[in-house]
Structure formats: C-alpha cells, structure tokens
C-alpha cells in the first residue's frame, strides 16, 4: 500500500477515510448488529420498558430513556416503493454506474433508502421484492496491546428476489 504525497502514511489505516463503521466491541457498543448480519439477520434494539424499536440500533431508548434494550429480528424482505439509478457521480467504492438505490418498505417497520446490488440497470420496479444481501468489506487492522489484529467486517445492501 502506498500513499502518494504523504509517504509517512504508507501502510497506515485511517479511520477518517473509512466509508464503513467500526464493528469491534472496543469501538462500537452496538457491535452485535454486525455479528447478527454475519448470520443473515437484520436486527435492531427494542426497548423493554416502552416497546419502542428505534433504528439505527442504540444504547438509549429515545422515547423513554431506558437503557434496558433487547436485540430483535426485523424482516429481511421488503417491497420497493421507488428506484433511483445514479449514472454520473458514483462515489469511489460503490462500483461502476449505475449505482442503484431503492426506497424499500420493510414490512411496515421503516422505509429504508438502501443500495441495491446484483441488479441490472432498469431491472427493478416499484412493487418488486428485495431481500437483505450481506457482503464482506475490508477488515480493520486494530491495535490490541502490542499486536495488530485484523477485525473482519461485513455490511449490507438489498438485492432483487429472483
């Protein structure tokens, strides 16, 4: 790995340039979300006191301020409300154009605006079904004492149900 213009950074990891969140216990208290993703589960936190299901998952219920939260499974299949296809200006790290996004009704839980992968231009239409798609992303070289440990990571998009 080389970093032109800043040779002292050759081979260094920069959290300030990482497009994905930290997923280790040391750097993120909602790390179970990512553990669940690896099992193909899409989860969030549900408040034991008031029943609220906030998303993104968190450590404090924003409705009643309880910290008594349980992990619960949400649906992994949703219905497309509308589709966008970015043909110019796709950011680094998101593949060749078009970058497809869809507004997806996750069975009434929330309406997510998410990236759609494994999908050709013009393929997806309102009313179509899409399902959770989990993929590996770059691991983070994290210092643990004197060691540097590679922390594996995953992230999610949705894909058409064929």
């Amino acid at each position, binding site marked *: 790995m080389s970093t032109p*213009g800043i040779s002292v950074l050759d081979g260094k990891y920069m959290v*300030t*340039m990482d*497009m*994905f*969140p930290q997923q280790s216990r040391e750097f993120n208290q909602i790390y179970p979300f990512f553990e669940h993703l690896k099992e193909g589960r899409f989860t969030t936190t549900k408040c034991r006191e008031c029943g609220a299901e906030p*998303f*993104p998952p968190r450590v404090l219920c924003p409705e009643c301020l309880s910290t008594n939260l349980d992990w619960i499974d949400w649906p992994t299949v949703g219905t497309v409300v*509308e589709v*966008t*296809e*970015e*043909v*110019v*200006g*796709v*950011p*680094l*790290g*998101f593949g060749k154009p078009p*970058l497809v*996004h869809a*507004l997806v009704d996750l069975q009434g839980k*929330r*309406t*997510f*605006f*998410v*990236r759609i992968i494994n999908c050709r231009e013009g393929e997806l239409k309102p009313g179509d079904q899409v399902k959770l798609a989990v993929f590996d992303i770059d691991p983070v070289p994290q210092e643990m004492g004197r060691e540097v440990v590679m922390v594996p990571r995953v*992230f999610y*998009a949705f894909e058409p149900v064929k």
Partner: protein
Amino acid sequence: MDRNVCVIAGGMSKWGVREGSQRDFFQEAAKACYDDNPLVKPKDIDGLLVASAYTERTSYQTHLAPLVAEYIGVKPKNVCARVELLCASGSSAIILAFAMIKSGQADVVMVTGGEKLYTPQKWEVFYSELASVDHDWDGSQGLGLPPPVFAMVAKQHMKQYGTKKEHLAQVSVKNRRNAVHNPNAQFRKAITMEEAMAARMIVPPLTLFDCCPITDGAAAIILAAEEKAKELTDRPLVYIRGTGQASVNNMSANMPTWTTWEALKIAAKQAYTKSRVEPKDIDVAMTHDCFTISEIIEMEDLGFCEKGEGGPFVADGQTDFGGKVPVNTDGGLLGCGHPFGGTGIRQGIEVMKQLRGDAAQQVPNAAIGLTHNLSGFIAAHTVVIYGREP
C-alpha cells in the same frame, strides 16, 4: 435586555472553482464586507462566528475562528467560535449572532463562512461527503452525495402531484438567468429551456442543471445592536425579525415524508410567528435550491403556494420578478454555487441589499425578506426573516 438587531454590512469573494486556500477566501470575503460599509472598522467588532463544514476534511484545520480573526484584523472579546451545520452553517451562525446581540452578550458580531472544497485530487471531496449524512448508516449505502436523495424526492413529487421535468427546468433557467447579474456567482451564463431539458443525465429525473455545483468561496456579514447600527451605517437599517431552526429526523429511514418537509414547516412557523408576519408578507426570498425540486417543495412548505402546486407556481413566473415572491434573485445555489458555510451568509447579504434598495436586480419596495436552508439528508431546516422595520 431585549434589543433590536440590524445587518449593517456584507460581502463575498468570487465563488467557483477557485485558485487559493480557505484562508485566502476568508480574507477576500472580509475585504468585500468592509468595503460594503467603510464606517465599520475591525475595532468595532466584538464577536466573530465562523461557519465552515469541511474545514477539517479539506483544509486539515480545526479551531478555525481564531485563525480567521488573526487574518482579518478582528480581536473578538465576546465570542470567537466556529459553527457547523453543513449547508446551513452560515445561517446557523447568523441565528447565534442575532441571539447574542439581542440578549446583550455582544454588540457587533461578524459572521463569516466558506469552504475550500476543491482538493488537488477531486475524488476526495466527493468521498468526504460520506460524513455529511449519517456516516455509519446512510453514507455506507453510497448516499453521501445528494443527487440520489433528491432524485427520489423528485420522482415521488412527480408521482403524487404531477410535477413535470419542465417545472424543474424552469427553476434552473430562472436562477441561472439571475446569476448573470451577480459578479461573484460561479455560473454567469444564462441557459435556455431547451438546454435545461437536454442536459446530461445525473440521476433520472435530475440532469446537470438540476444540481448545484461544488464551490470554493466565502462570504461575510456584520450584525449590530440597533443603537450601534445607527452609528455605524448611513444606509437604511435592515433588521432581523425572527428565526426558526428545526430537525425531526436524521437517518433516511426516519424521514416522516419525502415530499412534505415537516422540519421546514416547523422552522417556518417559528420564524413567521416570531417575526409577526405571514407567507403573503414576504417580498423576496432566498431558498435552498441545492436541486431544482428543492425550490419547488420549499415554495409549498414555506406557504407561498398550496401543497403540490409548487411546479405550476414556478412555471407561472410567480417566483420571478413581477411574481408573487421573487426567489433567489442573486442566482441561488444553482447559479452562485454552494460553499456550504458561505451559503446562508450569501443569502443574508442579498436580502440585506434588497431591503436597503441597492440589489443588482432590485425587487421594488422590498420590505420583508426571508432566507431558508436545508442541510444534510433534508435533516434540518433553517429560516431567517429580515425586515426594514424591527
């Protein structure tokens, strides 16, 4: 203490793809601001607020306000700090300066804002946009750059209300035409309806001229307590009458509706109530036309027209000179460009000029003006109302 607050000077650097650094542009903006009102000297200024969103990412500089103070000859003694709310950083700083002066915590505050967004390699600014939305949950879906978000808004507004691509094009044609008269605007060439309709596709239905550009530049404005203002200007006084700023969600999954912007309605209601005016009283408005569809929805949610009528309202010329409420008379974001921290200040300067009566394209007898910004994933809205009377 509850004092009236006036705007007594304002100026901006040339905006666009600029040669120079962030600190160069802050100096240029300060110079333009001082030149606008030679009666105000740096020694009169007791507070400085600096609005900048990307200073850490594209200039590797935090603790920006004392740096800017040093460069523009100001030695603040009541406040010297940076304010950040991405695209609404400038108007947020104006709100805070207004509150400080109104409450007696400061007498004369300069608010300056701007960005150096073009980097030696262009990918970096686009990549940095991943920090502008919820980084972990929306940025990671590739939603840092806003065109897909506003394309989704436009598609749904078209479906629900029959808004047409021609309506979108009309907004860019008007704002580009207005920018021709603004020497500091990024784009100073008018475009035709045909050009707007045939432009390169970005994210359907949005084409090139539906989107504001990436911009370098800065702007500065000076606010003063009424008594000070009477000493420090010989021009007609322009007052800040009232403000509102609201947020009801941040992550996209928590957006209540995509085509009615609840936070805008709340911010507008607060500003109208505190200013003791109604939408029909607004003579001129600078609204956040980051995309053409934005200006159309803003006409509706600011109460200038009925919900769903934004497209026809624009097409009828109601937002042009001679219409109900001329909008973005200096070119807006689509014409002037959008260096995030500078935009709210640029809007305030144009409204100040309109109410003083010395705008490049004057709305006759403008007495009440409004500015509006949205920021982030349509996640916060900021409204400021100015008047010739307090």
